[in-house]
């Protein structure tokens, strides 16, 4: 899937994550802020990278502000942002 435009999904509420996607980067890059960065930062990045790969998304900057989201929420919000970014409507 090719991202056609910047997109975003999620909230700043507890147990959630706010994700913004920006196309046009050389490779997939993650900028992550998290209240649990030291403990779970690498796991959050892994979920993001795995999901991007699953949907064939490349050349994208992912900015994520995490408020303690579980993997399932991270994945859901990223899928939403990807679908919004590929929709040209």
């Amino acid at each position: 899937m090719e991202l056609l435009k910047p997109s975003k999904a999620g909230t700043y509420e507890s147990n959630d994550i706010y994700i913004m996607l920006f196309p046009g980067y050389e490779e997939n890059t993650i900028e992550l802020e998290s209240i649990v960065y030291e403990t779970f930062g690498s796991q959050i990045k892994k979920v993001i990278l795995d999901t991007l790969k699953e949907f064939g998304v490349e050349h994208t900057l992912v900015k994520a502000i995490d408020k303690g989201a579980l993997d399932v929420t991270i994945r859901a919000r990223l899928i939403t942002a990807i679908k919004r970014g590929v929709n040209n409507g």
Partner: protein
Amino acid sequence: MANIRRSMLFIPGNNSGMLISSDVFDADSIIFDLEDSVALDEKDSARILVKEVLKTIHFKSEIIVRVNPFDTPYYALDVEEIKQSNIDLILLPKATVESVIDLSKRLEGTEIGIMVLIETAMGVEQVYNILDASNRCYGLMLGGEDLCVDLNCKRTKLGQELFYARGRVVNAAHALNKFVIDTPFTDIYDESGLEKDTLFAKSLGFDGKASINPRQIVSINQVFNPTIDEINHAKRIIEAKDRALKEGKGVFSLDGKMVDLPIIKRAEKIIEMASKIGLIKGVLL
């Protein structure tokens, strides 16, 4: 599928924290909501979040998803995505005969049942036909808030404005042997009001009550639980029935009153429910 539905708790479909923790509140059924609690520009987000949560987390409660109404552009997308998930029922808002038939067709090949939300004046008048429109339709919920908008009347705590609708939907549901759930009591800080409203619903024949807040679940469950007196009386009826069977008696009396089939059935229902919710143990009927 659960057949005890004392309480049904609505959880906003786009609220990650509540979705994930929704099983801890002891509601018999959880309703993940894609309709009223989700903003129009977040419908896609809620749909994806609910689907991912259902794929990942195993819930002990019965799982219901409220989709958007049949006449909205979100309905078909909701059903298409959600029917792939492991859920028990879809709650269909503003149900009509036409929408039940449509949903039933879309659910072919799945085990998912339909629960209809009766929340319009026409829905109340047509409730029997709506419930009877599909074998997949197992029960209904009354939606008092929207109904009062349609009736052009004020929704009050006393609920006199819903008296006709409550009686009508209870009668239709029991006539068709389907379950019937009462509308939520929306003042989450009025505990005695909730108890009165729930007791009234139970007295009319409702099987359970919907809730919009986890703090209401304990009260609702308690009201719909059989009381100790009811359980003890039901046990005595079953024992008397067993004695009568051994003695070859077709009819029998208990405490000077004749016991017939409806009373026995009611007693069995009370014992079954008490057993299932852990009020008595080791009962075999």
